[in-house]
């Protein structure tokens, strides 16, 4: 009688331990898979050109001494700072535009209801599903008509089509989950629509707002197709296109600089992510599952 539960318990514990070991092994493999490319980029960016060009030594480690010359060169003798500045301007303006448009619309769609608001909410969701690659050609014409071709203002014009729908959608979700009693209390306290939005809805839905901001930031920072299609002058380029098109030179030894550029260009979203990971994830999962 007593022997059975004892063996049962040990085998259960053994099972758990094996599951755990398998899980860690699995995670180890995945982490290596997910992190070796950025690791290799980092290693390359710290090598001298001579070491990069050398075929015999182990490419995965720096053997010849670490150098920051690629970074120095990038920051002092290339257009990279210009790209960085352009990207920052575009991203900040796009994030600001996006948040204003989507917070206003989400408040209206989540709370006020009017004729056609349901259709508009569905429209927002459908627009979110439209990829940049579907409409970049007609938008090319529109950008041309507006005289914005080959300026980064073209990006400020078109990026909101990628950011606003998703941000509106997740803000509708966050605003919609605020209990109605709260706006009624604010109404009785004497708040008008603007005060309600600024002093109640936005503070209460702050996590959602942060998630939406991060999303807009990431999209605006990372887009590649629009700047590649609309911008040709180096002075107007943003990081993605600038790095890919101007840092690739004919000779072999551009690799160190290229990797340094790619890493520096990727740094802001990665750093932002490191600090605000939880908002990032909450926004993403709620955006696709809420509604």
């Amino acid at each position: 009688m007593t022997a059975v539960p004892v063996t049962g318990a040990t085998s259960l514990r053994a099972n758990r331990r094996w599951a755990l070991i398998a899980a860690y092994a699995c995670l180890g493999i995945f982490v290596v898979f997910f992190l070796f490319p950025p690791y290799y980029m980092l290693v390359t960016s710290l090598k001298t050109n001579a070491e990069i060009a050398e075929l015999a030594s182990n490419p995965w480690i720096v053997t010849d001494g670490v150098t920051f010359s690629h970074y120095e060169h990038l920051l002092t003798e290339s257009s990279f700072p210009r790209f960085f500045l352009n990207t920052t301007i575009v991203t900040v303006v796009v994030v600001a535009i996006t948040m204003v448009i989507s917070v206003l619309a989400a408040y209206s769609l989540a709370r006020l209801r009017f004729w056609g608001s349901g259709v508009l909410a569905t429209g927002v969701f459908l627009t979110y599903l439209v990829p940049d690659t579907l409409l970049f050609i007609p938008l090319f014409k529109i950008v041309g008509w507006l005289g914005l071709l080959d300026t980064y203002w073209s990006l400020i014009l078109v990026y909101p089509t990628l950011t606003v729908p998703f941000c509106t959608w997740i803000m509708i979700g966050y605003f919609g989950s605020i209990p109605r009693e709260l706006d009624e209390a604010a109404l009785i306290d004497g708040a008008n629509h603007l005060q309600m939005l600024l002093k109640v809805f936005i503070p209460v839905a702050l996590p959602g707002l942060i998630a939406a901001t991060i999303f807009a930031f990431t999209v605006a920072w990372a887009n590649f197709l629009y700047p590649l299609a609309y911008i040709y002058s180096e002075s107007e380029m943003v990081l993605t296109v600038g790095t890919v098109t101007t840092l690739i030179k004919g000779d072999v030894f551009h690799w160190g600089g290229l990797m340094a550029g790619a890493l520096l260009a990727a740094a802001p979203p990665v750093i932002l992510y490191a600090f605000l990971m939880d908002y990032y994830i909450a926004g993403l999962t709620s955006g696709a599952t809420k509604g």
Partner: protein
Amino acid sequence: MADVTLQNLVKTFDTVEAVRGIDLRIPNNEFVVLVGPSGCGKSTVLRMIAGLEDITSGDIRIGDLRVNDVPPKDRNIAMVFQNYALYPHMTVEQNMSFGLRLRKVAKSEIRGKVQRAADILGIAELLGRRPRELSGGQRQRVAMGRAIVRDPQVFLFDEPLSNLDAKLRGQMRIEIQRLHQQLRTTTIYVTHDQVEAMTLADRVVVMNAGRIEQAGTPDEVYHQPRTRFVAGFMGSPAMNFLNCQVTEENGHTVARLADGPALPLPAEQAARVRSYAGRTLVAGLRPENIREAASHDGGNSGGVPHDISIDIVEPLGRETIVYFRLGDSTLCARVGTEVHPRAGERTSLVFHPDRLHLIDPETDLVL
């Protein structure tokens, strides 16, 4: 402070008629409790008074002002919600002062008012906390504090205690009572808890299906219900209803309960129901009017003993509830704790006719 008048108030949601014509005048300083079953329209009435719900037809006046089209903030009312509706991102102090800040009241004045309200409610030491750091009872107090600081003409409460546990509910009930004695602000209070209704109200308004069934003092509503609905709704356990016939026996007018005893009616009531002689009426008898035979308060006040067999016994400590059958109906009696009835036993219970309500089954009105 002001009185509130509702005139033929109607509210229709798409197809649902939630409120079907309410007339009610609430004089200054009165504490009115709206009770009724779930979905009878209590909250809707309250929310129309608050201005949170548009009025389909009828009029609402607060003081001399017709407020139908006045936005909530200009009605000079304050409301306490069931789920408190505290602003989660503000401290207690900010929660309480939000309304005043929006009205651009001077800072020093706000501070004084918040302090006073906090002192009244005993939450002075909580002013710096946020709602999530408060217990249910404390949140409730803050919600009330938010209402008090505005010094409104009318307080509106929508089931404010229903999220609290029984003990806390009892405490807060007393608190609210004390508050009203102190501030004397006209108050409209929605609940479905009868104890709250009976203990808090100057006047109880019993609603059913969007209409007022009866409005009166707690005593009137309990002891002189006007309709079968009110008679059955107020009181717990609920009033017993069973068929009876009014007949003349030995020169007395009696109500003969179906399969039960014949209860002699008091002269005044007899006069009112004599014309119904021969017809089947519904008799309503509260459980406390059916007692054990050897009851210490005599059992002499004209009670009629009757032998029954006990179905179920519920000892509640302070009293014991006994269920038994009389013909087809199951009745309920409240007996003292000195007797120890057992299920299955036969015993004799005394039916007291002095509080017998006779109801016309066609109109459901109490005769």
